[in-house]
């Protein structure tokens, strides 16, 4: 008998939570079927990935009082549990919503799992962490920067299933450099630099993107590719970029990362691990305004092992200093060699959920 697993994802910046849930959902064994409840505008992406999706407005868009939205979430979760009767509900986010917690407290007919990555900013998240005992299991997607984790989850091990970093694609899915460039319409011989400065609306990164593009365009033999979010496209950005810059609007981009000699990106969980796994030299611009994610520590770790550089002075001059060495082939080769091997923990996370599902049903 098929067992369903309901994934509930928060609507964070970009697609991180949703991507991790799909990565795990797509690796469930044949007797388990994923159902994703997303709060994201990226609903079509979930469907394109062949994953069954339900949708609920996030609190900000429904126009409701936030506490009323919690009631709406609680109600919708109850309805989905009635309809699909999932053996496991897996929440991916850093802070379980009160509406979700209310369902957890009221419903012991299924296992409740909290999927939470580490690397929380120091001194934050104690309230969320206090909710841990409510869950039947906690799955922690590993972080290559875990040695520098100073956050609240760093020393919590009881009831936690830690797996390798969770990514949507495996190395076998990746195209080689030439094929990836052909797929994206990039110059096969240029030094190609990907600018992927945030996927969400939390920060306005247009200025950074423009500054970086202006520096790179002045370099002979360099081609600039700008990754646009598949869930939010700024018309202003489209107008501001020069005509010789290639736009990339692909999801998932991970299998095509070999196309790029250098990537310039925020230091979110997915971006960092996908780039390290692809051994793509990177310039990281950590987003310092996230709710909990310690992007600074993650970026600093990648820099410390020699696989990346930090852009911490948000000026064109600062960017030039950060990126200039990476335009040399020998430097890039050294950085590729420094990148650690990254296993994909999505399959192990799926196995944890499937085992719980079998215990429940």
């Amino acid at each position: 008998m098929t067992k369903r697993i309901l994934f509930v994802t928060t609507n964070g910046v970009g697609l991180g939570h949703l991507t991790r849930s799909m990565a795990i959902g797509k690796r469930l064994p044949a007797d388990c079927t994923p159902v994703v409840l997303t709060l994201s505008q990226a609903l079509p992406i979930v469907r394109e990935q062949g994953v069954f999706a339900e949708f609920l407005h996030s609190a900000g868009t429904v126009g409701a009082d936030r506490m009323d939205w919690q009631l709406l979430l609680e109600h919708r979760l109850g309805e989905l549990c009635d309809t699909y009767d999932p053996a496991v509900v897996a929440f991916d986010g850093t802070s379980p919503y009160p509406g979700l917690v209310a369902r957890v407290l009221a419903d012991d007919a299924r296992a409740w799992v909290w999927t939470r990555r580490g690397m929380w900013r120091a001194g934050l998240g104690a309230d969320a962490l206090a909710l841990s005992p409510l869950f039947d299991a906690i799955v922690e997607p590993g972080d290559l920067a875990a040695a520098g984790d100073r956050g609240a989850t760093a020393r919590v091990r009881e009831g936690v299933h830690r797996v390798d970093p969770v990514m949507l694609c495996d190395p076998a899915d990746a195209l080689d450099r030439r094929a990836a460039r052909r797929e994206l319409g990039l110059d096969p011989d240029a030094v190609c630099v990907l600018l992927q400065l945030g996927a969400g609306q939390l920060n306005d990164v247009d200025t950074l993107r423009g500054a970086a593009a202006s520096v790179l365009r002045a370099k002979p033999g360099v081609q600039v590719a700008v990754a646009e979010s598949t869930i939010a496209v700024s018309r202003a950005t489209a107008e501001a970029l020069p005509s010789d810059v290639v736009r990339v609007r692909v999801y998932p981009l991970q299998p095509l990362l070999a196309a790029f000699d250098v990537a310039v990106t925020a230091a979110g969980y997915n971006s960092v691990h996908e780039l390290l796994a692809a051994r793509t030299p990177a310039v990281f611009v950590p987003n310092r305004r996230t709710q909990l994610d310690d992007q600074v520590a993650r970026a600093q770790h990648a820099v410390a092992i020699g696989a990346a550089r930090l852009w911490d002075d948000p000026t064109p001059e600062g960017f030039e200093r950060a990126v200039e060495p990476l335009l040399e082939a020998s430097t890039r080769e050294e950085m590729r060699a420094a990148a650690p091997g990254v296993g994909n923990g999505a399959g192990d996370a799926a196995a944890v959920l499937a085992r719980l599902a079998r215990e429940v049903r």
Partner: protein
Amino acid sequence: MLRRLYRHMSRRLPPALRVRATMGLLHVRRRLRARRGLVDVPGGGRPVMFVALGLDPTALAAFADDAAQARRAGLAPLVVTDCDALGLLRDRQLLFEYVPPRGDFLRAVGTDADYEAFVSSRLDRIASVYRLEERRCPQVAG
């Protein structure tokens, strides 16, 4: 007032007690909301459900225009759609609910599942949540 009280208290409570306080607040809000629906459709008019099932994005856009126009007649529209082009509704500042389309539902739940019963139940629940007493369907639905 309850929320202000909670915020005042939560600064003085350890995390576990703060969770309990939040749950208590949610319970009180649930009781208060029981008679008038969990969520108000924004706009202040008479809330009406506009059911747009089986429409492609072009037809949904036209239907959304009609629903947006209904605001001028004093209605507060909520659109229910099975089309994932939700940006069409968001662009018109319409509140909406999504129902998975038939093909997706049957693939996930099983080909012997009753999609009509699923949709009927979903519409009833949406009507209950938002206290919607009237439903309108598009004239163009095939």
